[in-house]
C-alpha cells in the first residue's frame, strides 16, 4: 500500500471533518436567530455532529478497503494475463513436474496456477512493477511486463478511487447532516448517542480479546485432549516433559498431569503476594497518609520504576543475587535449599508487583473524602486507627482491585519464573524446593524446538485454557467478596 496516498486520504478526511465542525457550528449559530439559547444544543454539538458523520463512515470504509485492496488487485492483475504469457512465464520459472501439471489447463488462465506458482508469479510482477527488473529472471520479463504495467496502473488508480469514494462519501454525509440542522435538531443527543456507541464498542474489545484468546486456545486444546485424556491432565499428579517432541523421536515417560504446574504457579504467586501485599499496601498507606507531599511525589514514581524493570532483569536478579543469598542463608542454618527455590522466584516477583499495589491503592486511599478523615480525627482517633477503620474499608473496592491486578500479574508473569524457577515439575508446597509454573512450561515449549502436532506442544494450549478458567473462577470469587464488603461513601 502506498503510505503516501493513505496519509493523503486520511488528511483530507480530517480536513473535511474539521470543515464539517466549522460548518455545523456556524449553521447552528445562523439558524439560532441570534439567540443561542433558542437552539436545542450548544453550537459545538452541531459541529461535532457533522464532524463525526463526515469522519466515521469514511474511516470504516478506508479500513475495509485496506483489508481487501491487495487481494482484489492481485486477482485483477492475474486475470489480465493471457494463457500465452502465463505459459512463457511458467516455462522459465516452474519445475518440470509443475509445468506439466499446468499446461493442460493453461487455457483457464491464472486460475490454473497452483497457489505456489501464483505467489511466485505475483512477486515477479510486483518486483517489475516497482522497477526492480534486475531481480526478475530476464527470461520472463517480456511475458509479465504488461501485467506489471497493469499492476502499477491499478495501484495508482486504486488509491485515487479510494480517495474519490472517501471524499464523495464524506461530502454527501456533510450535505445530509447540514440539511438536518435546525433549532429543534437534537444535536447533543445525537452526538452522545454516537459517543456512547463508541464507548460500548470499546468495552466489547475486552470481550473480543477474551473470545480471541479462548478461540486461539480451544481448538488446539481439543486436539490435545484427544491425545491425552482430560482427566489425566486435570488430576494427574505428574508432569514429565520428556516426551517426544518430534514424531521420529522415541518418547519416554510422558506424563501430562497438570496439578504440579498449578500448585507451583499458586505457590509462587502466593509467595509473591506475601511480599507485595503488605509491602505495597503499607507503602501506599504511608505515602498517602503519613509522608509529606514532597516525599510522596518522589517515592511513588520511584516505586513505579519497579513495575517497568524488564522482567528478564528481575529474572537475572532472582537467579544470580537472591537465590544464592537464600541458599547461603539456608546453608548457614543447615537447611538445604534448592538453587531454584520457589522462594527466590516468588520474592523477586513480589518486588516487581509492589507498585501495582502501592500506586493503585495510594490513589484510591487518597480519593477518600477529607470529611471522613475529619470525622474520625474529631472523635479522637489516631492516624492509624482512622486508616484501619475508616479509610481502608472505604477504599476497599479499589484496594481489592489493585490486589487482584497484582495477583493476576503474578500468575501471568513469565520471564522471571522462566529464569528463576525450575523446569522440573514437582508436586510440593515447600517454598524451599524448586517448582515450575504453567507459564514456564508454556514459554519453554513454545519457543523451543517443537513439532506442532505432538501432544507436548498441544499441551501448551490446554495449559493456557485451564489457567484461564482457574483465574476466571478466582475472579468470580473476588467479585463476590468485593460486592459484599463494599462501603460506599458520600
Amino acid at each position, binding site marked *: 500500500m502506498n503510505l503516501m496516498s493513505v496519509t493523503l486520504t486520511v488528511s483530507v478526511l480530517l480536513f473535511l471533518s474539521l470543515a464539517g465542525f466549522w460548518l455545523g457550528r456556524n449553521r447552528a449559530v445562523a439558524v439560532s436567530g441570534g439567540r443561542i439559547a433558542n437552539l436545542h444544543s450548544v453550537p459545538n454539538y452541531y459541529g461535532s455532529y457533522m464532524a463525526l458523520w463526515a469522519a466515521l463512515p469514511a474511516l470504516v470504509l478506508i479500513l475495509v478497503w485496506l483489508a481487501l485492496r491487495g487481494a482484489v488487485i492481485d486477482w485483477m492483475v492475474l486475470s489480465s494475463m493471457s494463457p500465452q504469457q502465463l505459459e512463457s512465464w511458467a516455462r522459465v520459472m516452474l519445475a518440470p513436474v509443475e509445468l506439466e501439471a499446468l499446461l493442460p489447463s493453461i487455457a483457464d488462465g491464472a486460475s490454473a496456477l497452483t497457489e505456489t506458482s501464483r505467489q511466485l508469479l505475483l512477486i515477479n510482477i510486483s518486483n517489475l512493477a516497482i522497477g526492480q527488473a534486475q531481480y526478475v529472471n530476464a527470461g520472463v520479463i517480456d511475458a509479465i511486463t504488461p501485467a506489471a504495467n497493469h499492476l502499477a496502473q491499478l495501484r495508482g488508480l486504486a488509491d485515487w478511487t479510494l480517495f474519490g469514494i472517501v471524499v464523495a462519501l464524506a461530502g454527501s454525509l456533510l450535505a445530509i447532516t447540514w440539511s438536518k440542522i435546525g433549532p429543534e435538531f437534537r444535536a447533543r443527543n445525537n452526538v452522545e448517542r454516537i459517543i456512547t456507541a463508541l464507548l460500548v464498542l470499546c468495552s466489547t474489545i475486552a470481550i473480543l480479546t477474551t473470545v480471541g484468546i479462548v478461540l486461539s486456545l480451544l481448538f488446539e486444546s481439543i486436539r490435545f485432549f484427544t491425545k491425552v485424556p482430560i482427566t489425566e491432565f486435570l488430576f494427574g499428579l505428574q508432569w514429565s516433559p520428556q516426551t517426544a517432541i518430534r514424531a521420529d523421536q522415541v518418547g519416554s515417560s510422558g506424563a501430562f498431569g497438570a496439578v504440579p504446574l498449578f500448585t507451583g504457579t499458586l505457590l509462587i504467586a502466593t509467595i509473591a503476594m506475601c511480599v507485595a501485599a*503488605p509491602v505495597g499496601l503499607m507503602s501506599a498507606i504511608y505515602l498517602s497518609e503519613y509522608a509529606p507531599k514532597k516525599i510522596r511525589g518522589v517515592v511513588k514514581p520511584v516505586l513505579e520504576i519497579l513495575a517497568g524493570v524488564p522482567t528478564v532483569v528481575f529474572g537475572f536478579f532472582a537467579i544470580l543475587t537472591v537465590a544464592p543469598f537464600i541458599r547461603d542463608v539456608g546453608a548457614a542454618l543447615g537447611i538445604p535449599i534448592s538453587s531454584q527455590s520457589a522462594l527466590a522466584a516468588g520474592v523477586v516477583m513480589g518486588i516487581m508487583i509492589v507498585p501495582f499495589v502501592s*500506586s493503585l491503592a495510594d490513589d484510591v486511599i487518597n480519593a477518600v473524602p477529607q470529611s471522613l478523615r475529619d470525622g474520625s480525627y474529631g472523635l479522637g482517633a489516631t492516624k492509624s486507627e482512622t486508616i484501619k477503620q475508616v479509610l481502608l474499608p472505604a477504599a476497599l473496592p479499589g484496594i481489592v*482491585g489493585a490486589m487482584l491486578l497484582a495477583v493476576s*500479574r503474578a500468575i501471568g508473569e513469565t520471564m522471571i519464573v522462566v529464569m528463576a524457577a525450575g523446569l522440573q515439575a514437582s508436586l510440593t508446597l515447600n517454598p524451599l524446593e524448586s517448582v515450575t509454573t504453567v507459564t514456564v512450561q508454556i514459554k519453554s515449549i513454545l519457543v523451543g524446538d517443537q513439532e506442532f502436532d505432538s501432544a507436548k506442544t498441544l499441551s501448551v494450549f490446554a495449559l493456557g485454557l485451564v489457567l484461564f478458567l482457574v483465574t476466571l473462577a478466582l475472579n468470580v470469587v473476588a467479585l463476590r467478596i468485593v460486592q459484599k464488603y463494599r462501603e460506599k461513601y458520600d
Partner: protein
Amino acid sequence: MTEIAEPMPTAMPVSLHTGDAATKRLKARYAAERRFRFYGILAILFACTMLVILLSTLLKEGTSAFFQTEVKLAVTIDAGVIDPKGTGNPAEWDRGAFQTLVIDALYKEFPDVSGRTEKRDLRGLVSPVAGVRLGQMLDENPALVGQTIDVWLPASDGVNQIVKGGIDRDLPEAERPISDKQLAWFDSLEQRGDVRSAFNTTFFTASDSNYPELAGLLGAMVGTLLTMLVTLVISLPIGVAAAVYLEEFAPKNRFTEIIEVNINNLAAVPSIVFGLLGLAVFLNFFGMPRSAPLVGGLVLGLLVLPTIIIASRAALKAVPPSIREAALGMGASKLQAVMHHVLPLAMPGIMTGTIIGMAHAVGETAPLLMIGMNAFVTSAPDSLLASSSVLPVQIFIWADKPERGFVELTSAAILVLLAFLILMNGAAIWLRKKFERRW
C-alpha cells in the same frame, strides 16, 4: 450510656479520657500508631532498597559500556583497493575491503610481525569490523580517498575487556582471550598514546550487531518507541472509554458483571498467551507482517488494556457521587457530567493505571517472541510495518550472547530502557500531579 454518664455528676468531673486507665490505653494506642507508621516506612525502605540494589548492580556493570577502547592507526586509503572499478562512486566501493585497509595499517604499525598465526594475533587487536567505522568516515568525507590519515578505530572485544578490567591480564595466557604477544603490542601502542577510552556513541547510533564494539540500541529504541506509541494509542483511549462505559453508563446487571469478571481475568492471562493471540489473529488471520512494531503494539495494547480499565474504574468509583449530582442538577447530560467533572477528578488514578500498564508493556518480552520481534535487525525501523526489535527483547538476546562484551552492553541497555521508562512516565506523572486533589 448509663455507665458513661455515671462517673461525672459533680461540678468538676474527672474526664474519662485523662484517667490512668485512659492514659495507659492511650500509650498502647500510640505504640500501635508508631508500629503502624514504622511498618509503612519499612515497606517503603524495603522496596526502595531492592530498587537501589538492582540499579546499582546495573550501574556498576553497565556504565563501562558507555565507553569504548579505541586504537589510533595511520590508515592509507588506497583507492585501488576500495574502488577496484575506479568509478569514484561511493556506491560502487568494495565495502569488504575497508577491513583490509585497517589490517594493512596494523601490519605497517608492527612491521616485524610475520607468520600466519602471529599475523592473526595482530589482527585480533582491533575489532574485526573496524572497517565499517572507516567506511562511515569515508562516506561522510569521500575526499579522504587516496590519503593517509590517523583514525581512531574500535579495539577488539578482548582488548576492551582487558582495558576495562573485565578480564584479569595476570591470568595465564591460555585463560585469556588475548595472548602475551597481543598484550605486548597493545602496551607499546598505549605507550605511544595511541589508545584511548572514548564515549561510545555507536551505542546510540547503531543497531544490533554480533560485535559488541559495533552493537547499538538505536533500532531497539526506535522499535520500542513505535511499539509503545501503538500500545498507548490503542490502550489508553479504549481502556478509558471502556472504564467510563462500565462504571458510568452500563446498567448494573449480569452482563456487565460478566464483562467485569472477564476484564479482571484478562489481567491474569499470561502475557505469552497474548503472544499466541497475536500470532493467531494479527499474523495468521489478518496477515500482518512478522516482527512489526504495529503488531507488537497491538498485542501489548491488548495486554495492558485490563490494567488501564481496572485502574480507571477504581478511580472513577472513587469520585464522590455528589459531584455527579451537582453536574446533573445543572442540566449537564450524563456524558457531560462525566467528561467535565468525573473524568478530570479520576485522572490521577487513570494516569497511574497508564503508567503501570505502560511500564509493564515496555518491559515485556515473552509475547513479542511469539510474533517474531526477536528478529536480528541491523537498522532502525522506518515504519510501523518494518521489522524491528524492542529494548527488552534486545536485552533478552544480548543476555544470551557468548561474547563478554555483551555482558556490559546488556546492563547498559537495561539502563537505557529504564531511562526510557522514566522519560515516558515522567510526562504521565507530571499530568497526574496536576490533576491530583483531595476534596
